[in-house]
C-alpha cells in the first residue's frame, strides 16, 4: 500500500517539464483519452474480428431418412430453397427407410473427422443421444414462437435447444362408426364395446375388437407405453426413475394379455405380427372394431369409406386415444462439425417455417409442428382429422428421454413380451434391467 501512496504524492511531478498541470488535471485528460481510445477500439477495430452475420457459401448436406411424404414434398421444398438461394444449395442424402439403419449411418458419419454433414433429420427419440455425444451444435438466437409445445420440447435436452421440429405425429384411435355409439373413454370401454359388437355379430368379417402394432419393433414399445398410460400407469417418471412395477401397469398388461386370448378375442391376435400397414389392412377388411394407428392410415382408409362395386365400405371415425399418445416425428439439427452453421440454421428455419409446414401438411400429409397450420381451412378439409390430431399432439408424451434410447426400447420390449406370455406379470428383474438400460448398460 505504501508504494501507492508514494506514487500518488509524486503525481504532480510526473507531467512534462515547463507545462503547468494544475490540480492533477492530466489525470482527467488521461481518462478522456482512455474513453476515446476505447470507443475507437470497440467501434473500429473489434468489428474486424467479430463473426460476420452473413451465410457461408457452399453446399449444405442434409442427412435424412427416405422422403415418405405424398409426392415427395420435402424434395419439392428443397428445390424451392435451391432456387431462392443458389449460393447455399441444399442436398438431401437419403438413407434407408428403417430408423435403426438411418441412425447407424448418421452416428458413423458424425464420428468422422471430415465435415461431411450440415443438417441431421433426427427421430424425436435421438435428440438426447446426439446432443450428449457432441454431434450437434446448439441453436442460438432462434425464434421458437409458434411451434407446438410438445414437439419443441423434444428438441431440448437438459435445457438447451438442439433442433427445430420438422414434422410431428401422434397415435389416434380409429373406430367403426356403425359398431360404436360413442367414443370410448378407457380400455375397459374398448373391451365391453368390442365384446358387445362381437356377440351381436352384425358383421361376419369381425374377428376381434382392437388392433395395434405389437410386432417386435419400435411399434411394440409405442403401443405398450400408450396402453400403460391409458390405465394411468407409467414406466419411467419425470425424474428418470423406473416405476414400471405398479398395479396400474400390470392391469394394462393383463388387459392386453387376456385380450389376446379366447375364441372372439378383444385384441386381434395377429397384432403380434403386425406393423402399421398390416393393422390398417385388418381394419380396412373389417376384421376389427378399434384400431390404434398414426394419422397416415386415414389416407388409405378414406378411399374405402364408401361402398364400391359389391365391397362393403368402412364407415369410420377418428378419436384421441383413451390416454396420452406417444409423440412421434422428426427434428432438424445442425451438425457440430458443419463449417456453415449460419446457412444451415437458415435452411432449418426455412424448412420449419410456417409456409413450409403448411405445404408439408397440406400436400405431403406430414403433421405440422406449428399450431397456425391447423387453423387453415384447406388443411382441415383435406385432412379432416387435423383438429383431433392437434389435441392428441398437445396431450402427447415423450418416450423416456435417455441417450441410450435404443437399448432401453430393446429391453422394454423384452419385458413386455414376457408379460404377454405370463398373463401380464412382470419379470422379477424388470425394474433393474430397465434402470440399467437407461444408463446404457
Amino acid at each position: 500500500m505504501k508504494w501507492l501512496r508514494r506514487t500518488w504524492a509524486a503525481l504532480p511531478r510526473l507531467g512534462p517539464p515547463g507545462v503547468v498541470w494544475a490540480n492533477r488535471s492530466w489525470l482527467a485528460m488521461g481518462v478522456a483519452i482512455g474513453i476515446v481510445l476505447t470507443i475507437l477500439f470497440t467501434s473500429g477495430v473489434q468489428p474486424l474480428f467479430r463473426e460476420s452475420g452473413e451465410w457461408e457459401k457452399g453446399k449444405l448436406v442434409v442427412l435424412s431418412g427416405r422422403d415418405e411424404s405424398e409426392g415427395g414434398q420435402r424434395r419439392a421444398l428443397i428445390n424451392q430453397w435451391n432456387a431462392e438461394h443458389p449460393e447455399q444449395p441444399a442436398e438431401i442424402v437419403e438413407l434407408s427407410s428403417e430408423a435403426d439403419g438411418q441412425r447407424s449411418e448418421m452416428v458413423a458419419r458424425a464420428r468422422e473427422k471430415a465435415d461431411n454433414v450440415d443438417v441431421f433429420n433426427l427421430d424425436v427419440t435421438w435428440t438426447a443421444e446426439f446432443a450428449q455425444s457432441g454431434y450437434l451444435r446448439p441453436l442460438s438466437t432462434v425464434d421458437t414462437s409458434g411451434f407446438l409445445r410438445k414437439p419443441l420440447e423434444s428438441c431440448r435436452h437438459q435445457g438447451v435447444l438442439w433442433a427445430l421440429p420438422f414434422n410431428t405425429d401422434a397415435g389416434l384411435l380409429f373406430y367403426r362408426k356403425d359398431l360404436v355409439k360413442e367414443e370410448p373413454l378407457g380400455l375397459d370401454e374398448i373391451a365391453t364395446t368390442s365384446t358387445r359388437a362381437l356377440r351381436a355379430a352384425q358383421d361376419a368379417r369381425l374377428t376381434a375388437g382392437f388392433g395395434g402394432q405389437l410386432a417386435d419393433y419400435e411399434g411394440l414399445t409405442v403401443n405398450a407405453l400408450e396402453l400403460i398410460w391409458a390405465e394411468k400407469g407409467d414406466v419411467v417418471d419425470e425424474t428418470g426413475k423406473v416405476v414400471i412395477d405398479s398395479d396400474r401397469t400390470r392391469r394394462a398388461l393383463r388387459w392386453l394379455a387376456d385380450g389376446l386370448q379366447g375364441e372372439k378375442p378383444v385384441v386381434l391376435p395377429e397384432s403380434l405380427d403386425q406393423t402399421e400397414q398390416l393393422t390398417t389392412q385388418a381394419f380396412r377388411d373389417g376384421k376389427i372394431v378399434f384400431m390404434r394407428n398414426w394419422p397416415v392410415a386415414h389416407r388409405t382408409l378414406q378411399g374405402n369409406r364408401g361402398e364400391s362395386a359389391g365391397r362393403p365400405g368402412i364407415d369410420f371415425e377418428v378419436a384421441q386415444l383413451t390416454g396420452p399418445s406417444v409423440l412421434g416425428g422428426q427434428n432438424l439439427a445442425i451438425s457440430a462439425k458443419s463449417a456453415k452453421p449460419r446457412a444451415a440454421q437458415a435452411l432449418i428455419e426455412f424448412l420449419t417455417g410456417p409456409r413450409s409446414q403448411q405445404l408439408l401438411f397440406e400436400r405431403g400429409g406430414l403433421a405440422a409442428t406449428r399450431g397456425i397450420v391447423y387453423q387453415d381451412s384447406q388443411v382441415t378439409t383435406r385432412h379432416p382429422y387435423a383438429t383431433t390430431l392437434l389435441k392428441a399432439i398437445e396431450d402427447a408424451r415423450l418416450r423416456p428421454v435417455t441417450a441410450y434410447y435404443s437399448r432401453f426400447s430393446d429391453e422394454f420390449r423384452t419385458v413386455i413380451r414376457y408379460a404377454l406370455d405370463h398373463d401380464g406379470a412382470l419379470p422379477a428383474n424388470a425394474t433393474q434391467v430397465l434402470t440399467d438400460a437407461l444408463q446404457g448398460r
Partner: protein
Amino acid sequence: MEDVDQRRSSTAPRYAGALMLAAVAGHLLSETATGALATWQSWVLYGIGTALLVLSASAIDRLNRLAKRIRLRWVVFTAVLVVAAGLVALAAPPVVAYGRVLLLGCPQPTEVRVLTSQDAAPVIGEVARKFEQHTAAGNHGCRTARLYVFSAWGNRGAIALRSSWSSQDLKEVGPHPDVWLPDSTTETTEVVRRTGGIGSAVRITPGESVAFSPVVLGVPAAIAQDVVSEAAETWGELFTKVGGTGIGIGRPDPLRAIDGRLATEALYESLEPAVVERRVEEADRPRPDAAVITTEQVLMRHNRTGCARKPCLTALYPSDTYRADYPLNLVEWDAPDVSNLAARAPARQFQAWLGTQEGMTALNAAGLRPARQAAGPEFREELGVRAGLALDRAEAAPDDAVHAAFQKKYEQAKRDGRVWLALDASGSMAEPTATGDTRFSVAVEGVRKALTQMGAEDTYGLSVFNNSEVRQLIPLGRRDKEAATAALGTVQPSGGTPLHQAVLDGLDRVGANDADHVGAVVVLTDGEDTTSPQTRQDVVDAVARKGIRVFVIAVGDASCAAHALTSITDASGGECRDSTTDTLGDDLAALFLRVWGGTG
C-alpha cells in the same frame, strides 16, 4: 529466520486457498452461464475437483515443513514423485472410466454395420446380441460395440459392394457395411476381385468361414416318414423320391440365392437339368404342404418360430450336398466422409470372438455349425434336424469353372416365361414427373426397355386398368416387342385404380404353370386399390391357390410397405418393388429378367 518462516507458513496457504477459491468461483460462474453444469452428476464431479484443488493448495506449506525434516529430501522427493506418477498412470484410466460410468452412464458403443443375407440375418442378429453382451463383461457392464445387422435381397448386397455403395444403395439397401457376412465364400471371390483395384473406394479383406449350414431338402413331416431311409442318399435319389409323392418342390432362384444354386449344381450331376427344372417351383421361403430346398438353419428357425401348423418340415440330408459356409469379410471404406474407422477394431474383435468357445457356442445355439465344434443340444429331432452329419464332400461349394458351365445348362433347361403385364391407367398416372413427361409415358418407356430382355421362347400379354375395368390390349402369346408401345400409345389415363381386379384378371389370363411354361403377373401401379369389388384377402387367396408369381412395381403414391402390397406378392414367392420415375425403366427390366430367368 525462524520468525519469518513461521509467518509465511501461517499466511501463504490461506492466500493460496483463497486464490484457488476465487478462481473456482469465477470458473463456476462461467460454467453455469454456458449451461455446462446441467445435471446433478456434473455438479458432483465439479465439487470433487474443487475440493481437491483447494485442499492441495492449502496443504502445500505443511508438506513443505514436513519435507525439511527428511534427509536427502530431493532423492526422496523424486522417488515419491515417480512412484506417485506411476500409480496415477496405472490407476487413473480405470478409476476415471468407472467414475464416469457411475456418474454419467456408459459411453456410447461403437457402431458396427453388418451386412448379411436375408436368410442369415436372424441368426447373425442373435449371435451379434451375444457378442454385445460379451463386450460388456469386462467394461463395467457397458457395451463397447453395437452391431446393426441388416440384409439385402438376393445378391443385391454383393452388387452394391461392387458399385462402391452408390447413393441409390444407401437408400435401398442400408448404411455402409463394416462387416460383410454372405452365405457362401463363392460370393466373395468375385466381389473381392472387382473391388481390389487401385482407386476403388472399398477394400474387402476376405475372411474365413465362421460356421456352416448344409443345404437340405425340407419335406413336410408326414411325407418324411415315407421317404427317410437309413442308407445315405444323393440329391438325385432324394429328389426323385420326394418328387414321386406328388408334392411341390420349392427352390430359391439359383442365379440369386446360394442355397438354390448349390442344390441345383448337385442335382445336375445326377439328373438331367430339364427333369429338375420341370419339377421345381420358385420359392424364397418354406411353404406349408410343400418340400423346399433351403439351408438347415433356415429350416430349423422356421420350425422353431415361423411354423404355425404342425407338423413342420423335416430336413433330408443328401450325402453329396454342398453347404453355405458364411465367411466373415471385413469391409473398409476409403472415402473420408464414410470411413467409420472406429468400427474396424470391434469388427476384428467380433471376428476373433466367433472363433472362441463362447462365440462357437453362440453360433451353435443360433442354428449354425461351427467348423471346429460338434453340433450342440439345439440340433434336436423336434426341430426337424439331425446333430450327426455324414457328408461326402470336403469342399463347401463347387469351383468357379463348374459354376460357369452350370449357368449355361440352367439357361437351356429352365422353362419358358409367360408374362402378363398389367399397367395402371388411372387418373393419377397422368401426373407429370420431374422431367415433364407423365408417369404413364415413363411407364410405357420402361415397358419398351423391359421387353428387350425377352428370351427366345418367352412370350407376353398386356392389359391396362382404370375406373372399374381391366382392358386387354395384347393377348397372351405375342413376341412382337413393338406392339406394346403402339397399343399403349392410344391409352388416356383417367379414373380409379381397380388394382385387385387387375391382379385376378392377370392370374386368369396367364394360365397355370405346366411342364414347359412358367407364368408370372407383373402389375405396375401408382396407387392403392380404390375401385375393385374384391378385397385384398380375395386376391391373396387366389394368388396362393394358383401358385403363380405376382410382381408389383409401386411408383408415385403407391408403396409396397405402406399399402401392404407385399401381402399379395408374398403369397406366391413374387416380389413387390418400390420404384421412382427415375428408376422405373431399370426396375421393370430387372424384374422381367427375373421372370424370364436371364442370367442378369
